[in-house]
């Protein structure tokens, strides 16, 4: 498998070419700094993203409260996590940092409140 990865570590935006199978990288070129190399390796083997969304809240001034994954989750699990977040139905108070879903979709990552509703 080969992938062209645009590095997002800094504004330079190097295009890094990575080759390999099953997570083993056989060839990597096009990076211009060590941070870029690490970024491209991670993007190739196990890309992760912070997921942010909103959750329903009842009996509050606002209909929604902002939520996020505390740390990044595997990219391929984003839509599965969205399904779980959609099921949330909160009531006030919700404080910033409150854990709303523990270990979402077995990722080991918690969904927490990023906004707050008193």
């Amino acid at each position, binding site marked *: 498998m080969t992938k062209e990865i645009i590095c997002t570590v800094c504004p330079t935006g190097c295009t890094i070419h990575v080759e390999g199978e099953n997570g083993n990288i056989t060839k990597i070129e096009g990076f211009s700094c060590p941070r870029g190399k690490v970024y491209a390796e991670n993007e190739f083997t196990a890309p992760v993203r912070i997921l942010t969304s*909103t*959750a*329903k809240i009842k009996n509050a001034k606002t209909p*929604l409260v902002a939520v996020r994954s505390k740390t990044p989750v595997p990219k391929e699990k984003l839509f599965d996590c969205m399904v779980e977040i*959609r099921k949330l139905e909160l009531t006030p108070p919700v404080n910033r940092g409150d854990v709303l879903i523990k270990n979402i979709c077995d990722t080991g990552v918690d969904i927490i409140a990023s906004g707050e509703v008193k």
Partner: protein
Amino acid sequence: MKADVLVIGAGAVGTAITRELTKYRLNVICVDKREDVGGDCSKSNSAIIHTGYDAKPGTLESELVVAANPQYDKLTRDLDIPFKRIGAILPAITDEQFAQLPEIKEKALKNRVYDVQYLSKEQILEMEPNINPEVKGGLFIPRESIIDPFIYVVAMAENAVANGAKFMLETEVTGIRKEGDRVVGAETTKGYIEADYIVNAAGLFCDEIANMVGKFDYTVVPRKGQFYILDKNTGCKVNHIVLPIPTKITKGKLMTPTIHGNMLVGPTAEDLYDKYDKSTNTEGLNSIRDDVTKLIPGVMLQDTITQFCGLRANRNPEGLNIDVYDDVKHYVNLSGVRSTGLTNSVSVGAYVANLLREIGLKMEFNENFIEKRKGIVCIRELSKEEQHKKILENPLYGNIVCRCESVTEGEIVDAIHSPIPAKSVDAIKRRLRAGMGRCQGGFCGPKVIEILARELGCEPKDICKNNSKSYMVCGKVK
């Protein structure tokens, strides 16, 4: 449902006829297929009250426009309609145009518009420093005026309601029932309406209504007009309506302040077959740029806050026609109400009322006729002290929803619960200007949807931009 007179169409003309008829003890119903009064043509035009100086002398159109203009001072005062007599300037830029001036003035005299004056180059440049300095001279037409066309129709309709008329909106006429040689009622999407007399003031669609009574003597040929609206803060403004000298082919494109201080530039004139084609196009917009630059070289079209397109309900064969027929009795047909329609609507109202009398309608004077109507309070125009007082009466007047035009939640709620309720985003915009400013509803749009849903007791997804298919949002995210 039963009416003495059924008026089809709630544009400027239909509404004016309806209001005129409420001066008599009559049961009047006005129907329109749209969700709001204001029609098609009546809401997208140059918003000018003409004098008729350039009409074809001797025509019905000339007679009615010339008669209408002087009525607007009292009418707009009575009905609380924004209106200003700012006058129009016709600058002659070329020698050829300069040579045309006597002919234009002579035509004005034939139309009995006696107050047209010559202007020298110096006078013009003093009145309008932004006019092309090559100007040779020109004409001044003092009574050409500007109006808020939306408020005009809303005010006429509200006053008609106050005097007992009924407006049925989202009510489309699908057929007209005849008995013998006379009409007796109309089938509509909201049921059958029995009517002693029917007036067809359906504008763009008046030919389709005429077909329903068996008249096929004309067709409507919509004429498209595209416009630019410029920001109030644009760097190049005019103080008068600046009209080009017409050519054989076209009346040309003008630039004028609107009653609210924006600049309006246009229109194009393109004949169409599609009555629903209200799209702007690059050719049209570019032609406005090319033409207006000749008059006002410094015009800053980059300060545009919107472009829009209106349709004039021209007809083939041409000309304003108000017809009654021997073989279709109890029926009045209006057609060819075009760019002068907004102006002449008020005299068309009186003319049609008289025509109805002539064809047998019994008309007894309504001594309880209420002449005056008060619009929604405009918070931005009050002094600080008055604003303070209003807000203490109703806190919603202290919540500004549209920041560009400073429209408050209180005014929006007033419009939703007014005699002709504003139920759509556009209806709010036309009455209050919320969403008509430089951000074009970017800031107030979501709030207007919220307020409409709350006041009308429905879901935001049921709120439309205008008609029932123009939904703003499609349901809850979660």
